[in-house]
C-alpha cells in the first residue's frame, strides 16, 4: 500500500531525527508534525536584562496578578500589588467552616462545614494539559490529587425519562455505544458501506464494532454476559456457591435517544475534561495561598481601585480602603499590569486609547452558581457506590459533584449540590436569596438521591454575579467580540497591560489567567528593555 520502499514514514523520520539530534529535537519535530502540542507553555519564564529601579504596579492578587508579581520581582523589578479583598487568590477560592461571605445585596452566609470539608466556589479542576498551572503547583509545592471527571457508576438523570430514575453512566454509555455499533454492523452486512469501505476494511470494522460495542456473535447488542461485561450485571460475579453472574437488560436505543441522556456524554469526551484531571489536596485555594506565600509581602489588601491614570512617565492608581470608602490613597509606578475583571474595569476611570476602552467595555460576564451541601454521611459511597465524579441531570441543579478525596471514610462530607454555568438556571438561582438556593439544591437533588432529606445538615451557595470582587464568573466572549476586540484588549497601551482569564483563549480557566499573565509580562519586559 502506501508504505513503499521509497516512502519515508513519519515514524521512521522521527526515529531518525531522534537518533541524530537527540530527544529535544525530536520533540520539536513532533510538535511541528502536529503531535505532542499539549500546551503553549514553554517552561519557566526567563526575563533577561537588568530592570533594577523600574517599578510595576499590579492590580489584583488573583493567579494572573500574583504570577506577574512573582516573575517580575524575580527579574529585578520593584513590585507592589493592590487587592480588593482581604485575602489573596481572587476566584481561586475555597470556603470552609467558620468562613463567612457577604454577597452583593448584603446577604451574609457563614459556612458551617465540619473540619477539613470545603467548597471550591470557583475553579475546581485542572486538566493535565494546563501545564503552566501544573508547573507553578510543582514549583510552589502544591500537592495534587486526581479529580474524577468520569465515574462510570455516577448517574445521568432525565426527569421525564425512565420514570425519573437516574441511570448509571456505565449503562447509558455501553448501551448507546453498543446499539450504534449494532446499527453500523447491520449497515455493513447489508452492503450499505460498499461504496465507502473496501471489503477488507469492512471485515475489520465488523471486528472493531464487536469489540468496541460489546456485540454478540451475530453482531447484535443483546442481553447477556458480553454486554453485561460493559454495562454491569443484574447479579455481579461472586464467590463460592451460586457465584455465576446474571446478565442485565440493556435499555433500547429509542429510549436513550428520547431521554436526551446522550447529551451528557460529551462531558467525558471533550479535550478540557479528559483524564487525567487534578485538584489541589485540601481545596483549590491551596494554589492561591502558595502564591501568596511568595508575594504576600507585596500585597496591599482591601484596596478598592477607583481610577487609573497614565502619562508618558508612569501610572498613578487611586484607591480607597474597601472597609473605609472615605479614604483616598494613591500608588504610582513606571508600569502597570492590570488584572481587574472587565466587569469592574469597564466601570473605572482609565485613560487608555479608544480601541482599548471599547475592548474593555465589550465583554459581559457569565453567570454561574455553585452550592456546597454537607451531609451526615457519605451515602453516595455507602449506599450507591459512587466514589468521586459527577452526576448530570436536566433538573435546575444540573450537576452533583461528589468529593474526590476522603473516600470510604465514615462521618460527614460535603458534595457540590449544584453547578450552573451560564444558561437560564444560573440567573434564576442567582436571583434567589442564598437560603432558597440551598433549599432548592436539596429539594432537586433529592430526586436523584432520596437520602438528601434525612442526611442534609447545612449548605452555602455562591452566585458569581453577586460576588463583589468580580460581578460575574468569567469573561463571556462571543466570536464576534473576540474578532473585533481581543487583540486590542491584549496590546500594551502606553504603560498599561491587561492580564487575566479574560485576556486569554482559555476563558474561565486558571491556565488562561497564568498564560495571559506570562505573555503580558514578556511583552512588557521587552518594551521596558527597549526604552
Amino acid at each position, binding site marked *: 500500500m502506501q508504505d513503499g520502499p521509497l516512502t519515508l514514514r513519519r515514524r521512521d523520520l522521527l526515529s531518525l531525527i531522534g537518533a541524530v539530534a537527540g530527544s529535544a529535537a525530536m520533540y520539536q519535530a513532533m510538535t511541528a508534525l502536529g503531535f505532542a502540542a499539549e500546551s503553549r507553555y514553554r517552561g519557566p519564564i526567563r526575563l533577561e536584562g537588568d530592570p533594577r529601579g523600574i517599578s510595576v504596579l499590579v492590580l489584583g492578587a488573583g493567579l494572573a496578578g500574583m504570577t506577574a508579581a512573582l516573575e517580575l520581582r524575580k527579574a529585578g523589578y520593584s513590585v507592589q500589588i493592590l487587592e480588593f479583598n482581604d485575602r489573596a487568590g481572587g476566584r481561586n477560592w475555597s470556603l470552609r467552616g467558620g468562613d463567612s461571605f457577604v454577597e452583593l445585596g448584603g446577604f451574609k452566609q457563614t459556612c458551617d462545614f465540619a473540619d477539613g470539608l470545603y467548597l471550591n466556589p470557583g475553579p475546581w479542576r485542572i486538566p493535565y494539559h494546563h501545564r503552566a498551572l501544573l508547573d507553578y503547583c510543582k514549583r510552589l509545592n502544591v500537592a495534587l490529587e486526581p479529580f474524577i471527571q468520569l465515574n462510570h457508576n455516577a448517574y445521568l438523570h432525565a426527569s421525564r425519562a425512565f420514570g425519573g430514575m437516574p441511570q448509571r453512566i456505565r449503562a447509558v454509555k455501553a448501551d448507546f455505544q453498543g446499539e450504534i455499533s449494532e446499527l453500523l454492523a447491520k449497515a455493513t452486512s447489508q452492503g450499505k458501506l460498499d461504496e465507502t469501505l473496501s471489503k477488507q476494511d469492512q471485515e475489520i470494522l465488523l471486528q472493531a464494532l464487536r469489540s468496541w460495542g460489546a456485540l454478540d456473535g451475530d453482531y447484535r447488542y443483546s442481553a447477556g454476559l458480553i454486554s453485561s461485561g460493559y454495562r454491569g450485571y443484574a447479579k455481579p460475579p461472586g464467590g463460592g456457591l451460586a457465584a455465576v453472574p446474571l446478565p442485565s437488560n440493556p435499555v433500547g436505543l429509542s429510549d436513550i435517544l428520547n431521554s436526551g441522556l446522550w447529551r451528557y456524554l460529551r462531558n467525558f469526551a471533550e479535550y478540557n475534561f479528559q483524564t487525567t484531571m487534578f485538584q489541589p489536596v485540601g481545596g483549590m485555594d491551596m494554589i492561591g495561598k502558595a502564591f501568596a506565600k511568595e508575594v504576600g509581602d507585596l500585597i496591599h489588601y482591601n484596596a478598592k481601585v477607583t481610577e487609573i491614570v497614565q502619562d508618558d512617565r508612569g501610572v498613578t492608581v487611586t484607591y480607597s480602603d474597601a472597609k473605609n470608602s472615605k479614604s483616598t490613597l494613591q500608588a504610582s509606578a513606571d508600569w502597570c499590569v492590570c488584572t481587574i475583571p472587565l466587569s469592574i474595569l469597564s466601570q473605572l476611570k482609565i485613560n487608555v486609547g479608544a480601541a482599548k476602552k471599547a475592548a474593555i467595555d465589550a465583554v459581559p460576564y457569565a453567570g454561574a452558581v455553585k452550592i456546597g451541601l454537607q451531609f451526615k454521611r457519605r451515602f453516595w459511597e455507602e449506599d450507591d457506590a459512587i466514589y468521586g465524579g459527577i452526576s448530570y441531570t436536566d433538573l435546575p441543579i444540573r450537576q452533583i459533584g461528589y468529593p474526590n478525596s476522603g473516600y470510604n471514610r465514615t462521618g460527614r462530607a460535603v458534595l457540590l449540590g449544584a453547578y450552573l454555568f451560564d444558561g*437560564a438556571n444560573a440567573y434564576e438561582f442567582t436571583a*434567589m436569596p442564598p437560603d*432558597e438556593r440551598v433549599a432548592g439544591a436539596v429539594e432537586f437533588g433529592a430526586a436523584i438521591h432520596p437520602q438528601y432529606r434525612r442526611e442534609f445538615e447545612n449548605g452555602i451557595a455562591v452566585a458569581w454575579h*453577586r460576588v463583589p470582587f468580580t460581578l460575574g464568573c468569567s469573561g463571556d466572549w462571543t466570536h464576534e467580540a473576540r474578532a473585533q476586540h481581543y487583540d486590542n484588549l491584549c496590546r500594551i497601551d502606553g504603560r498599561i497591560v491587561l492580564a487575566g482569564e479574560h485576556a486569554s483563549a482559555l476563558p474561565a480557566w486558571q491556565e488562561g489567567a497564568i498564560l495571559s499573565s506570562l505573555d503580558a509580562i514578556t511583552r512588557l519586559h521587552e518594551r521596558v528593555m527597549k526604552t
Partner: protein
Amino acid sequence: MTRARTNARLHATLATLAVLLLPRPQALHAEDDAAARNSGTFSSGYRFVEMSGEELYVNVCRGCHMADAMGATGAGGYPSLTSDRNLEAAGYAIDLVLYGRRAMPSFANMMSDDQIAAVVNYLRTHFGNDYHDAVTPQEVHAVRR
C-alpha cells in the same frame, strides 16, 4: 414520542421547602421579602420560560439589580433602576437587555421579543418609573441586529 421540551416548566415545590427549617442568612438590607421570593419557575433549557414582566424581573434581573431595584456596589457596581431617567427612552432599555453593556449580559438569545417587551414594560412602570408608553414585541424585533 413527542416531548414538550420547549415549553416545559419545572415547578419546584419551593413552598414546601420551609419544612427544611434552614437558618436564614442575615439580610443586611432589603430583600428578605416573602413577596419577592422566586415564583417556583425554573427554565429547562438555555432560554427563559418566564413570560410576565414581574416574573422575569424577580427570577432574572433581581440577581444583580436586587428586589428593590436599588442595585449594589462592590469593587464595581450594578446601577439602580429606581426613578431612572435613562428608562424614558424605551429604545435604550431594549438595546441594553438585548445586547448588554459592560457587566450587563446580553439576553438576545435567552429571551424572546415578547419577554423583552414584557420586562422592559415592567421596569418602566415600577420602582418609581412612570413611563406608560408600552413597547411592543415588534419594536423589540426591529432593534435586533
